[in-house]
């Protein structure tokens, strides 16, 4: 059928099941926006800054498991996506970014709003395309979605010159992708699987370490079966949070820099570490040379490059977390290690996550706990980055995968609010809570306007301490309390909420926390922002100093 490439692009998006795109129009995407103007099946969400579009698409992808799509114009529109794309890349989130580009004839001539976005995003995308032949567009879109969501998921960018969008092509739906150079392996090598089974059989002090790969592959059920059948305690990376319910007796919680004492000690003492879809980031391992030194390591990952990259794997298995676990489960007999479980439980009981109450001073941990109670542990938690993120990770005990959405790898401040928009649009019935800091929230505060325009009932809990708190904490602990440029002022968040058309609540006393949250939960037609004035110098603890051994934690 004859149509413009822009029209064909939208047809392709529909064939991929795209229901929503997050974008911002501009000169180089006019042909595409002209098509979107009449489009009924795809909803367009207008953001206030392109970075917000990328994070929203990312949040949508993480919450739903579907591919998130964002659109920006050429030049500054495209470069504004960069932080969002990198965030998605570091956390293996499947998004497709579509950017406009100047027309082919003036490409490479420093034209108005020209930026070499395919060059710029080469190291931060799983793959990218600069489309020069309009006839190729349907194949490229098919490939882009296929690459984004298969294997280890990740962002793919399609750069589309404006004249390519306007060109007429003969559109035929593309049914199949065939890439000779890209064939992800899902099934584990059976010999390796049997070695892993043998190692699990023989282990006396095993630990399961689950990462974001378990969430991406939907391996929760299999992880839980393995843990229960063989009585193996489970620790998670930040990205693996939600793989199994955190209130499960076998869950030890977060591993690493701000992890639980029990998780860090268990990994340090275990004789078998079964890492699944986890990449042993420095935040999880601390000092690598002292990490899990007693353990044999089974490393299951869909990305062969992750195996042996940071920590040596004795039994590497390349494959999809869910699939490989099924293979393991087919061969594994029930097992018990009562003395190990007892030891681990003792750690857990002796060293719970804790904080000190101080009269009416608001403790951020208490705020997160209250949110947890009042949402019955059922909310989708999105976080910004810094102390707020760690308190959320430590004190909101998740039940389900895809319930905790955070920028783990890149640590992008300003992620939370726009990501919440994507989450809420992807899951309209979900209760979405953005746990924020006063620093982070200011990085993409403009997206309040987007949330208001879309009438999204997102709750934003600002843990407001007047500091860039995590940096302040490092300065306090490691830089002789020299608080260099971490005192940050903020607008009056109540007035700001009002100006944007949100509800705003301020809480200054500990005894008012619950009531404020309850009030926020009643707001259904717009965002509600709660400004919690928390203890200014509260620290995130436990803490393993950067590069230190994870069994040496600062606890008080």
């Amino acid at each position, binding site marked *: 059928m004859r149509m413009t490439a822009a029209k064909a692009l939208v047809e392709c998006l529909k064939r991929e099941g795209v229901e929503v795109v997050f974008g911002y129009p501009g000169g180089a995407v006019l042909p595409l926006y002209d098509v979107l103007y009449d489009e009924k099946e795809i909803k367009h969400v207008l953001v206030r800054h392109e970075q917000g579009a990328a994070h929203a698409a990312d949040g949508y992808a993480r919450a739903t498991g579907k591919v998130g799509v964002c659109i920006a114009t050429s030049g500054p529109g495209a470069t504004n996506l960069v932080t969002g794309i990198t965030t998605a890349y570091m956390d293996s989130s499947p998004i497709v970014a579509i950017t406009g580009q100047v027309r082919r004839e003036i490409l490479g001539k420093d034209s108005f709003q020209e930026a070499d976005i*395919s*060059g710029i995003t*080469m*190291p931060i995308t*799983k*793959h990218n395309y*600069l489309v020069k032949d309009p006839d190729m567009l349907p194949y490229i879109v098919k490939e882009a979605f296929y*690459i984004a969501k298969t294997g280890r998921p990740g962002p793919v960018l399609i750069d589309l010159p404006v004249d390519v969008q306007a060109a007429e092509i003969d559109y035929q739906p593309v049914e199949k992708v065939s*890439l*000779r*150079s*890209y064939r992800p392996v899902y099934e584990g090598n059976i010999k390796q699987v049997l070695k892993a089974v043998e190692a699990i059989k023989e282990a006396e002090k095993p630990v399961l370490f689950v990462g974001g790969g378990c969430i991406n592959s939907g391996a929760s059920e299999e992880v839980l079966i393995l843990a229960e059948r063989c009585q193996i305690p489970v620790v998670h990376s930040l990205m693996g949070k939600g793989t199994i319910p955190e209130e499960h007796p076998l869950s030890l919680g977060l591993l690493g820099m701000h992890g639980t004492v029990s998780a860090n000690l268990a990994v340090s003492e275990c004789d078998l570490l079964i890492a699944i879809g986890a990449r042993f980031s420095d935040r999880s391992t601390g000092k690598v040379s002292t990490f899990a030194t007693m353990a044999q390591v089974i490393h299951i990952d869909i*990305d*062969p*490059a992750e195996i*042996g*990259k940071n920590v040596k794997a004795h039994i590497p298995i390349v494959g999809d977390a869910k699939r490989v676990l099924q293979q393991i489960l087919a061969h594994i007999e029930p097992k018990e290690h009562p003395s190990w479980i007892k030891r681990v439980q003792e750690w857990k009981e002796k060293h719970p996550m804790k904080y000190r109450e101080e009269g009416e001073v608001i403790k951020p941990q208490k705020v997160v706990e209250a949110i947890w109670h009042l949402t019955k542990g059922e909310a989708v938690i999105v976080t910004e980055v810094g102390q707020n993120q760690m308190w959320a990770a430590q004190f909101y005990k998740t039940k389900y995968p895809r319930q905790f959405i955070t920028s783990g790898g890149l640590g992008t401040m300003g992620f939370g609010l726009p990501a919440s928009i994507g989450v809420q649009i992807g899951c309209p019935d979900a209760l979405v809570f953005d746990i924020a800091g006063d620093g982070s929230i200011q990085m993409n505060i403009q997206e309040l306007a987007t949330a208001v325009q879309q009438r999204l009932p997102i709750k934003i809990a600002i843990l407001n301490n007047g500091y860039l708190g995590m940096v302040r904490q490092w300065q306090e602990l490691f830089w002789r309390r020299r608080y260099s440029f971490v005192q940050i002022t903020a607008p009056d968040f109540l007035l700001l909420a009002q100006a944007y058309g949100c509800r705003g609540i301020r809480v200054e006393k500990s005894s008012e926390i619950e009531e404020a949250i309850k009030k926020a939960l009643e707001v259904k037609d717009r965002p509600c922002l709660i400004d919690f004035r928390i203890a200014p110098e509260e620290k995130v603890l436990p803490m393993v100093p950067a590069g230190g051994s994870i069994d040496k934690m600062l606890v008080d």
Partner: protein
Amino acid sequence: MRHTLSVSVENRPGVLARVAGLFKRRGFNIESLAVNITQDPTTSRMTIVVDGEEAMIEQIGKQLNKLIEVIKVADYTFTSTLERELALVKVEATPQTRREILDLTHIFRATVVDVAENSLIVEITGDVEKIDAFVNLVRPYGIKEIVRTGKIVMARGMQSL
């Protein structure tokens, strides 16, 4: 240790930039690189020489394989291969020294491809050591310019990438 990687890639614009960029950002250093089209016009072959420890080379191979347009990566370091490099060497040559340079050229089975009043251009192919040896021998006459290609390798016998 120095490793020789043979990499087959899609013959498309931008692939070289992807490969080169990957080496740069992962902190690997390319010592030499040769790339050209193969018997299959949709495929190019890169020969990359890189110095590093075993674990690093393994990581390079895996990272290369992750690039969508990389079809296959092989480490030919421990394979029986034929390796060739080509160099053009412009040597100063006076009527007195010309004869000696020509003799050296013949010994190395190299060819004189250009003769001017005061210089010669010698084309020499061989492994890296042979070319180094030739360059060292003609150095005393005065080298005006050397241009060398990256090394290319091919496995001996029936084996192919």
